[in-house]
């Protein structure tokens, strides 16, 4: 073919992924996510360590075989602290993502199913919400309701349903024009029944994907709020409070209490994004073929 001088490269698609590297990416992501889940579920009860125990003699030890991530300014093992922090951050992230997804799916489905002026007003409200920066709105809510686990969950959840609402609305609108929905309506099904039985199940994969992608985002926001001193209380180890607590050590030149909690945010985020990308290709294969051209 005449165009082969430049075409094969672009034919590999997004990220230049061949089938092998794509499979490798999915499996390594799955391995990391499994490891994270096992670590936060199994390690704390099995190891049964007192993560808060202070050992002033061991303070600020650099990474070693005994303490792979080193110790913090009161001698607590950072690997243990990071696992406990990840546990709290993951829990907050998952609950906030569920809140955001439920609100977003309900709003999006309501707008699309009702149509007309309800749709217009609801989507205008979504635009209004989208005009306030997420973190600022989150900061405002937390400031007014005082920092704590629930204000953080609510503030992250209530600021992140917008994209889900838009996705769900678009999906419901596209499903509504399908013949089987017409058939259900002409068969005399009520609007409620059509929405719940015929439209929502078709939306669930997209909403689920949005929810999964929301988890790292929610963790990011929780850690940002906690870092600013507006999130979880400082004695509660979360990834954000760990970075916040490490600031004084960092200014004294000790990098490890800052570095490792950050890696605990980045690595699971990349793994979840890797898995979600594979999922998206499964439920929406056209997207990939468009990119592959």
């Amino acid at each position, binding site marked *: 073919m005449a165009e082969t001088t430049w075409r094969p490269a672009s034919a590999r698609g997004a990220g230049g992924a061949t089938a092998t590297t794509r499979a490798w990416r999915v499996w390594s992501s799955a391995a990391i996510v499994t490891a994270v889940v096992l670590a936060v579920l199994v390690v704390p009860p099995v190891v049964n360590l007192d993560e808060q125990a202070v050992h002033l003699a061991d303070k600020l030890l650099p990474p070693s075989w005994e303490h792979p991530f080193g110790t913090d300014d009161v001698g607590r093992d950072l690997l243990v602290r990071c696992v406990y922090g990840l546990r709290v951050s993951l829990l907050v992230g998952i609950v906030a993502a569920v809140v955001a997804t439920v609100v977003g799916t309900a709003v999006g489905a309501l707008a699309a199913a009702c149509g007309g002026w309800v749709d217009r007003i609801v989507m205008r409200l979504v635009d209004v919400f989208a005009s306030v920066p997420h973190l600022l709105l989150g900061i405002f809510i937390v400031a007014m309701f005082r920092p704590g686990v629930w204000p953080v969950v609510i503030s992250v959840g209530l600021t992140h349903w917008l994209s889900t609402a838009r996705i769900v609305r678009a999906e419901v609108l596209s499903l509504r024009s399908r013949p089987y929905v017409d058939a259900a309506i002409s068969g005399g099904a009520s609007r409620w029944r059509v929405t719940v039985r015929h439209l929502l199940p078709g939306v669930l994969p997209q909403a689920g994907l949005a929810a999964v992608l929301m988890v790292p985002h929610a963790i990011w926001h929780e850690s940002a709020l906690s870092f*600013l001193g507006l999130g979880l209380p400082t004695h509660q180890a979360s990834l954000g409070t760990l970075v916040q607590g490490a600031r004084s050590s960092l200014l004294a030149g000790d990098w490890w209490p800052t570095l490792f909690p950050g890696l605990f945010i980045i690595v699971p985020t990349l793994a979840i994004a890797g898995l979600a990308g594979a999922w998206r290709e499964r439920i929406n294969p056209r997207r990939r073929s468009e990119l592959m051209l």
Partner: protein
Amino acid sequence: MARLVGRRAVFAVPVLLLVTFGVFAVADASPFDPVKAYAGTAGLTASQENLDQLRANLGVDKPLVGRWWDWLTSALQGDLGDSSTLRQPVADAIGERVGWSVLLAATAFVVAILLGSALGVLAARRPGGWLDRCVTSLAYTLEAAPPFWLGLLAMWLFALKLDVLPAGGLTDTASTTVTFGQVTSHLALPAAVLAVSQLPWFVLYVRQGVGDALGDDPVRGARARGLAERTVLLHHAFRSGMLPVLTLIGSRVPELITGALLVETVFSWPGIAAATVGAATSVDFPLLAALTALATAAVLLGNLLADLLYGLADPRVGFDG
């Protein structure tokens, strides 16, 4: 063009009204009590009569809508109330700080756009090549990294280990005047970190846009005419590939504000974003309300800018459509 600006402005008014009302509604629903906040520890021992008097003086005995309306009418006359944390009128506090924030954000954004375009085009040139893989992986990793963490590590490396840049603030502590050289050296690190935190998104979109454009007919035609690869890449692919990116530039203002909130806090930059965090910590409602409205206005302005840029870059788009 005037019509487009006019339409955006008309949309902006109800948005700002709703957002400010929402701010008052959230405050109303929260346990926060402006009277107790104003009175401080004295409020614990004050008599109910005094508290009621104070409540009336502060104008917070009115219902929600009345308080919002009072705030709105005086805000339109330039009076945004007094900040309890900064002990000065909110308008003055914002006026003093907003310039530094704009300087930081604008520098970072320009750096992110220039560097992002360059990296994106380089990556798009050979999709799947080693450069593309490196750039894409780096972009995804940086996207996942919290800006405050990047800021802290950058501070450790450049200010503490290498000792080439100051760790924070606007000027050296010994200095009493604000000089250009001082500000530049203090700006470098926070601006670089903010730029790096905005970079991934930009690189990925430019890469996608230019990559797609490289497969389009104009590029094929240009290649068929035997034009140099450089010309094809920069004049044909880059220009059309940047169109989808341009529309999104203005919509990045919220992320820029989010990044500035974190970076200003890390580097003690005397901007408006760091003041927001301080206001939130001590529940300084007048300052928070004004800053939320200001941030919303900035976002709306960004949207307008995106529309205008798009029209300038793509002659097919009419402003009066």
